[in-house]
Every structure is written in structure tokens, then in C-alpha cells.
């Protein structure tokens, strides 16, 4: 499977030239194998690319981890929505209080947006997931609720040979004593266990996290600790804080490397990065 990162910024898009290396678009990643295309989250990274154009493919599946604005604000600008020949499937976390359609329509309707969900010309199907397993093309996908405010899931995508785990918003260390190291008590563990590649929330530095507990995000230190406990092979630290410039991110990462000595690969996720898994 081929994974392309189209947005790795957290919370709000940024446009500063000092952030151009890691990128300013919010959460979006494309996973492709053969004719099957998954789009992970609909942040601003979803805009301005017509991934179906000229491919002969007319189905795309969008997997939303949750409905915070930085994960759905690109939906209104997703080109495949506007072609009546396309089948677009949206998979998102279930809630006891409102349907996925009703919750998405809060954004995709006036006064926040001129086009309503029901007016999109494509053939649109919505699917609610929780602690679920489902299949799309060659992929088996597990979703599990994880610790983050509001209904939020992470995804484990397997093609039978490799596993890509996507948990861009996650605070597994929430609690009096930080992260519980007994993996039975570790939010997100089942999703990440022995994954070939994990993309995980790492919004804050260790110091910044001390004043942001409960906001739903991880420090870089907790992200690598989580990945280590889960036994992943490679980790991409993502959901970069919108206040962090490229230089600051490099500095924080160098400091993280100095303080941690893990025997797996980990690096900062950057917009445009491509990873091939067998």
C-alpha cells in the first residue's frame, strides 16, 4: 500500500513560510492499493487534489477519526464529491445522540457552508463505526474508540501483509500518573500493536503538555513511549502544533532524540511524505 501524507498540522491550518517544510494543512492521508483509495480524515489537506481524475476509478472511501473541524474542514472542497459518477463512502465514529449525517451536516450547511450534504451530486453513503471491523477492497480495517474529547476512533488498516495505524488525535497518558504501561489498560493499543507504520498525535513538547492535560493530545515523549509499548516498527509524529515553526519542530525533535533511546524508527511527519508498505 502507498501512503501519502497531505496534511499533518493540528488544530488549524497555517500558512507561514516558516512552516512550509512540515506543512500547514490539517489532517489528511491517502492510502492506495490498486484501485482502492482510502482518504484518512478530511482536514484542509483534502483540498485541491482530484485523486480520481484520469484513473478510471470512481469510488473513494473517506475514514474520519472524529468530527473536530480540523478533520472535516476540507470536505466541502473534496473534488470527487461533485461528480455524479462517483461513489463516495464516508466512515465515521458513531454517537448515541446524533447520526453521522446529522453531525456532519452541522458543518456542511448554512450558515457555516453554502452546500448541504444532501445536495452533493455524487452517490454518497455514510457508515457509522465504533469498535468495529470492516472491509474495503483489499483492506481489512479495525476501528476502536480512543481517548480524545467526543466520539473519536483510530484506524488499523491491513492489506494482509502490512499494517498502517492512524491515530492522529489521542491522549493515552490522560490520568494522575500518566500512561499506564500494562497494555491491557492502554487506549489505542489494539490498533497499534506491532504495526509496520504508526502515525500518531505528538502535538506538544513534554513541557507544553504539562499545561494541556485533558485537551486530547499527546506530547512527543508520550507518542514514542506509546509506540514502544505497542511494538511498532516505524512511527510518524504528527498533528504538529500550529504555533510550532519548522525550526522549533526540528529543535524539539532533536531534544526528544537526546532524551529517548528507542530501537525503532521515528521521525516527524511532513506534508507530501510518501511511504510504501509491502
Amino acid at each position, binding site marked *: 500500500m502507498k501512503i501519502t501524507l497531505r496534511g499533518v498540522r493540528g488544530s488549524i491550518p497555517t500558512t507561514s513560510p516558516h512552516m512550509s517544510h512540515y506543512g500547514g494543512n490539517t489532517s489528511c492521508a491517502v492510502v492506495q492499493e490498486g484501485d482502492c483509495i482510502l482518504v484518512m480524515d478530511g482536514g484542509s489537506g483534502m483540498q485541491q487534489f482530484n485523486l480520481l481524475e484520469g484513473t478510471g476509478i470512481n469510488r473513494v472511501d473517506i475514514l474520519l477519526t472524529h468530527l473536530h473541524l480540523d478533520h472535516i474542514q476540507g470536505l466541502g472542497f473534496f473534488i470527487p464529491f461533485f461528480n455524479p459518477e462517483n461513489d463516495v463512502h464516508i466512515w465515521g465514529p458513531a*454517537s448515541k445522540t446524533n447520526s453521522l449525517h446529522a453531525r456532519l451536516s452541522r458543518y456542511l450547511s448554512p450558515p457555516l457552508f453554502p452546500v448541504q450534504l444532501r445536495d452533493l451530486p455524487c452517490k454518497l453513503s455514510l457508515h457509522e463505526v465504533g469498535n468495529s471491523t470492516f472491509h474495503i477492497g483489499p483492506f481489512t480495517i479495525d476501528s476502536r*474508540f480512543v481517548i480524545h474529547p467526543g*466520539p473519536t476512533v483510530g484506524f488499523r488498516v491491513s492489506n494482509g501483509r502490512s499494517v498502517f495505524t492512524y491515530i492522529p488525535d489521542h491522549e493515552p497518558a490522560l*490520568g494522575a500518573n500518566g500512561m499506564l504501561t500494562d497494555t491491557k489498560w492502554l487506549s489505542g493499543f489494539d490498533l497499534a500493536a506491532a504495526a509496520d507504520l504508526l502515525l500518531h498525535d505528538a502535538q506538544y513538547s513534554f513541557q507544553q503538555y504539562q499545561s494541556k492535560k485533558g485537551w486530547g493530545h499527546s506530547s512527543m515523549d508520550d507518542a514514542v513511549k506509546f509506540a514502544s509499548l505497542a511494538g511498532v516498527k516505524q512511527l510518524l509524529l504528527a498533528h504538529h502544533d500550529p504555533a510550532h515553526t519548522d525550526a522549533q519542530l526540528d529543535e524539539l525533535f532533536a531534544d526528544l532524540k537526546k532524551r529517548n533511546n528507542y530501537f525503532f524508527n521515528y521521525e516527524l511527519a511532513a506534508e507530501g511524505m510518501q511511504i510504501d508498505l509491502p
Partner: protein
Amino acid sequence: MPAYAIEIILNRQLADCLSMPVFITDTAGNLIFYNEPAENVLGTRFEETGEMKVETWSTIFKQQDDEGNLLPPDSLPLVRTLKEQNPNHKTFWIVSLQGKTEKISVTAYPIIGRAGNFLGAVAIFWQVKDAS
């Protein structure tokens, strides 16, 4: 073993922050976590015992009414909560294996997850201060 549902994990993380004794069970009543104040009630440490089968931890103390009569299990808040998936509250006496007697109130509530499924229960023990 798969990780617990986050609703269970978050209840444990909350219990870790509280000064009241808190016990968390699975749907069968097996004790899957108790916090430090609860360690004093049980006389054991979670780090040492780990999880306890319902048959084990239910014998650690006896429950009595004001007259010293043994209470039937079905009248206990946690047992009722596990059966009915409703909150329950009751004040009674507990007698530990060491013979220590203490008046307590127990509040039990079910953990109903996001999907509406029953995941387990929490029992909070409140020490009753003697009015006299």
C-alpha cells in the same frame, strides 16, 4: 489480551485521582481494578494481587445490617447494579477477615459505553461517620 474499552480505562484513570475507595469490575463482577484507598479496605495491594475473580474478592469481607444479620448478596448495591445495569446505593456494615467492623455506604453505577453497551461497574465505598 485485548485492551479494555476506553470507558473502563478512563474510569480507572479517574479512580487513581480520587481519595474515596473505588472498585471497578467487569460485567461478571470480577475485580479488574481498585485504587489506593480501596487497598486499605481490602487489606491488599492491586500491584500484588492484580485482578481478582468474583469468587475471591467477594469473600474478603462479610456484609451485615444494623442488627448484625448477614445481608443476602442480591441486596448489595454492586450485585444489583451488575444484574440490573442501574445505579444503586445502600448503607451497611462490613466485617473484614481480620474481624474489623466498619459502617459504610456503597454507591454502584454501571459503565454504559458510547455504543450503549454494558461494559462493567464501579463501586465507591463511603466511610460513614458516626453521628454520636
